[in-house]
Every structure is written in C-alpha cells, then in structure tokens.
C-alpha cells in the first residue's frame, strides 16, 4: 500500500484510458410552480453546467455543501432525473435521452447506495429479499438454489451473517443496514456504483467499517468505479482517486486528493479545506483558517458570473459578469476561476 505501483487499483485507474463516464454540460433545473394551474414561476438551478470524465476503475469524489448539486449529479447519472440539458455518455453510449426500454439492459451496470440506511430499505421486505430483488428483476438467476446461493454470497461479501437473511430491516443496526444497502447495490454486478453520502448517517466507529468495506470491494473487483458523494472532505479525500469540488451547481476545482490538499487553488476550495478540523491539536494550531463571509446563496436566484463572487476574497468586478470555465492547470488539476492562472 505504500507505493503506487503495488496497488492494483492505482494501476487500473491511472493507466486505463477507457472512459466509463463522460458527462458534458449537464444541467438540471427544477421548475418552481405555483397555484392551481401549476404555473411556472421560477427555476432551481441545481446543476448548472457540470462536465467531467471518469476512467474505468476510478473513484471520483463529489464534495460540496448542501444545495451544491452533488446529489442531483448522481441522480442524473443513475437516470432518476431527466436532465434539462447536457449529455451523459456511459461506456460510450449516450444514456441521457435513451428510451427506458432500450436502457433497461444497461440499468444493471449502474447501482446506487443511499445515505439513509433507515429510509432506503423497505421495512416490510426481509433483508434477503431486498438484496436478492435485483437478481430476479434482471433475470440473473435461473433456479431457486442459484438465487439463494447468490444472495448468501452477497451477504458474505459485505460481512453479514447469511443466517440473518430472513430478518427485517428494523432488526438491524445502522451499520448493518448500510451493509444490506451495499449488498443490494452489488447484486446486479454493476460497473459503476454511485454512493450518495454512504457513511454520514453512521457513528464514527461504524463509518470506518463501511469505508473499509467499500475499499475492499473496489480492490477485489475488476474495474468497479465509484462516484462518492459526501460533504465530509476528510472521508472523500481518503477514498477518492480524484475529487471534484462543487459550489452552487458547478464544479470549481477537480484534481487528485494530494494536489487538493497540498495545492488548493480555488478560493472556495481553500476555505472548505480550512473549515475541516484535523484531530490533532498541534496541526490544528498551525493551520490557516479562512472564515468565509455570508452563506451559500439560494440556487433559485444564483449570483451572476462566478456564483462564488459575493463571498470570494479575491473577487473583482469582472467576476460578476463572466462565468469562469474549468481550465487545465498542471497535471490533472482543473480550476474554474478567472484569477487563478
């Protein structure tokens, strides 16, 4: 684990040029309606022009504060939302506008792990049936024995006792429930798993168990890609090969975890990093603290130009009018800021 060449996961990510996902100009606006006739009175610009590429086997972390659109990006990719504009190429195929019937066979390639281990499992379904349902729907099993064997294997894979298959969600702890959610996500043998805040509802000591499990699953597979959505920068940094920092519907910086920590360029990234506390008093005392003014503006009426300009310490009048685009600065490091060259 010490050098990059020893870890198979790094080899597949850095060397594999094969794109699993290519998102271009993704926009998702939700209409605000009012009155009996549902007249449209405005729009929530949840995602406003997001583009990124993901290589096979790579883990991309999406980080940002609430309302920045990170969950919406994940939901667009998993086709839970139909985007307003932009394209999503999955394994080279445009899945943005593909009819559901045509998409169905590809559905098994994308899975989602949800945040809330309490709300995301059907309370009236046994754990075994929750995990096994995708197998049935996707027609991946022929016989009952085959089905049971597969479900048992999945339970084992996520560290649950297969004897608990007949139990119901309320009989499990939060950490165990999240394991059930992970087993369900893996049942259809996906190539892309979207993890939406998979550990934020869990206690600190349980978080580590789930993070380790997700890492083991990645290493034990051939080319499983994760999109890891979280607000906790420490967790994202620990888990991801690349990190995209989002602010009000746009990606402001995208780079490797090391580069992000050692050399953050966007003023928002710097503020976000400084806001995270490190559990080490000496390091904490020495760290730079940037306290931002104000709050994240509403995505209903986002600021013009660079959406961060009102809170930005280096903003100039130009930032009010010009929308910055992501620019490549150095190796695998893109920033969207007019003043960072």
């Amino acid at each position, binding site marked *: *684990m010490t050098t990059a060449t020893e*870890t198979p996961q790094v080899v597949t990510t850095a060397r594999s040029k094969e794109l699993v996902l290519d998102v271009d100009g993704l926009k998702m606006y939700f209409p605000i309606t009012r009155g009996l006739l549902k007249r449209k009175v405005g729009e929530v610009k949840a995602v406003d022009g997001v583009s990124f590429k993901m290589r096979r086997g790579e883990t991309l972390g999406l980080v940002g*504060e*609430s309302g920045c659109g990170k969950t919406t990006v994940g939901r667009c990719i998993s086709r839970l939302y139909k985007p307003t504009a932009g394209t999503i190429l999955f394994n080279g195929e445009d899945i943005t506008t593909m009819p559901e019937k045509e998409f169905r066979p590809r559905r098994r390639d994308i899975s989602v792990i949800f945040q809330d281990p309490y709300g995301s499992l059907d309370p009236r379904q046994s754990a075994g049936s929750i995990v096994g349902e995708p197998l049935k729907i996707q027609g991946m099993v022929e016989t009952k024995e085959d089905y049971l064997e597969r479900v048992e294997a999945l339970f084992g894979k996520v560290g649950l006792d297969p004897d608990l298959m007949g139990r119901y969600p309320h009989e499990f*702890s939060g*950490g*165990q429930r999240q394991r059930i959610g992970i087993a369900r996500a893996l049942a259809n043998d996906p190539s892309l798993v979207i993890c939406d805040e998979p550990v934020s509802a869990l*206690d*600190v*000591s*349980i*978080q*580590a*168990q789930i*993070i*380790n499990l997700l*890492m083991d699953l990645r290493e034990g597979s051939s080319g499983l890609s994760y999109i890891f959505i979280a*607000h906790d*920068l*420490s*967790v994202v*940094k*620990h*888990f*991801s090969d690349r990190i995209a920092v989002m602010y009000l519907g746009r990606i402001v910086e995208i780079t490797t*975890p*090391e580069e992000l*920590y050692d050399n953050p360029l966007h003023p928002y990234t710097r*503020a*976000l*990093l*400084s*806001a*995270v*506390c*490190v*559990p*080490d*008093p*000496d*390091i*904490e005392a020495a760290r730079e*603290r940037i*306290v*931002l003014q104000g*709050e*994240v503006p509403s995505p209903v009426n986002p600021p013009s130009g660079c959406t961060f300009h009102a809170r930005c310490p280096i903003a100039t009048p130009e930032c009010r009018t010009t929308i910055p685009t992501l620019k490549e600065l150095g190796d695998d490091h893109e920033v969207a800021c007019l003043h960072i060259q």
Partner: protein
Amino acid sequence: MSTQTGIQTPACDIRPAGELLRVNDLQTEFKVEGGIVHAVNGVSYTVNEREIVGIVGESGCGKSVSQLSVIQLIRKPGRIVGGEVWFEGDNLLKYDSKGAEMRAIRGAKIGMIFQEPMTSLNPVLTIGRQLTESLELHLDMKRKESRKRAAELLNLVGIPSAETRLDDYPHQFSGGMRQRVMIAIGVACQPRMLIADEPTTALDCTTQAQLLELMLSMIEGCRGSLVLVTHNLGVVARYANRIYIMYAGKIVEQGLCRDIFYRPQHPYTVGLLNSVPRLDEERGRRLVPIEGTPPNLIGMPDRCAFYPRCPERGEQCRLQPWPELEPVEGEGHMARCYMRAGRAEE
C-alpha cells in the same frame, strides 16, 4: 452502582480557585419497555472558569443527557436518580426542576445551545420575542429596552438588518441563521457557562467554521466557560482545553487536549482516533474500525461496557466490574481500564 446516592466529596462549598462547575457521580436513567436505561451512569467532571471543555462520544453514550441533567431538563420517563451538580457553591440538584431557583440559573447563568436549530426555536413566536423573553425574565428589562438589546445581540452574531428581522419567525431564517439566533439567545444574559450540544453538526462545513468562531468570541466576550458536546474529534482538537471521552454512560478517559490526542490511554479513545480518516494523511491508509456495535444499554452486565469490542481485553475485564478512573501519565489524565491502569508508575 445505581443504589449509591453519590456523596463522594463531602463539602464542595470550598471550591478550588477557578472552579465553576463540579458534577459528582451524576446518574440519570430512563424507564423504557424492557427495562431501565442507565443513560448517565455515574459521571463526574469539572469545568473551570474561562475554560473550554470538550465532551466527546458517539450517539447514545449519554453526553447530551448528562448536560440536560445538569440544567434539569430531563423529561419523563427520564429521571435523575443520584449525584450532585455544584455550580457557584450551590448543589443545583437540590432545587426543584421547575422552581424559581432553577429558572434563575437556566438561560441566565448557564446558557444553552442545542443541535437542532429547527426544533429548538419556537415556530409560533417571533425571533424578537424569543430573545427578549430571557432578557425581561432574567435582567428585568422593560419591553423597549429589551428590544433594543435584542437587536444589538442579533447584530453581534452577524445577522444583517437586525432591527427588522426581530419581527420575523424562525422559518424565515436559514439553518445557519437560526443557529446564530440560538447563539444570541444562549449568550443574551452574559452566562458564566455556555453548554453547546452538537452546536454545528446539522450545518455545512464552512458555516460550521463561522459559527464555532462566533460562539467562541461571544463566550470570550462575556468571560464565560464553554462546554462543547460533540462527536467530532477535529472540533475538540481545535478548540478544547480539556476533554472527557464518554462511552455507554460513563466517562472512560479524561485529560488535557494534548494528552488525549498524543497519549490516549483507553482502548476506546485509541479506537476512535484510529477510525477517523484525516485530512492531513496520505490516501489509502487502512482505517482501523472499532469492531462490533455500541452496546445496548438495557441489562448491561456489570463489567467494562467496551469489553466486547476491545482489542486489548483481558480475563480480568470479563470477570470484574467496571474499573474506576485511574490516573495515567499526564496532568489530570485518567482512564477507566484495567489493562492500562498503573501505567503511570511503570
């Protein structure tokens, strides 16, 4: 343990210099279906003047209940069954929870900030009314005067156009703004001590940083102490002077901030520190989780509650009752562990 009335230190009226709060053997239990939960099971701690004390633990460890017990805000089926809470020379537990003495302390000498700014503000009262209430009650201010002071307070906590916002209701504020209002209420009467229970957990990172800094400057402004209850080790590393680590209703380790982080003694503290990913470390370090799950507090056997999850457990831990807090290396550094006790002498 629970039958003890908890008189360990006889006369607490003679306080050591600088000591503001001394909690002795506090016990709070909840009667629930299936048994009694000893949520706070003999907790003792002190808060000195102008000190920031961190109380750290995971959900269900009793950290919040211990704080609510100190200010007697425990509702049925909960009950404080033992212990003493010495605050400025008075044992608060001898007062009736709804009596005049307790009301004169709560919100005045001891301020409180709770986790959920959404639910801890009254939705049908204006922000102004909720602020002026404690000013009028505790500081005998008249309507006009209290309103002026309330606007000043809102201004202090960084709410723009404070004067007009006094007439707004909580739902018209964002989460961060509501927590600013909570801070304003918490420090309205210049408390000697502010209890902040997970004050920023429900908020975004950058807002968290803003509010923690704000809370600190406010409490420094009125020369008070701060009790910071949190599960976030990073936050206490940044702010706390001393730290108490709680597990299953008991304090398992206590000490100066540096001792807790650089010389942790209790296996649970060590486990917590190893299980969190850190921003400043290299990617790919294998986290060391604490195996198993937190204990069910109903019908726990009388032994170390961390025993089933402990990587260092020994035979003694299984057979004997919970050990007492024993001194270990470091000033005021104590841990509740058979395997670590006596290390100080070695």
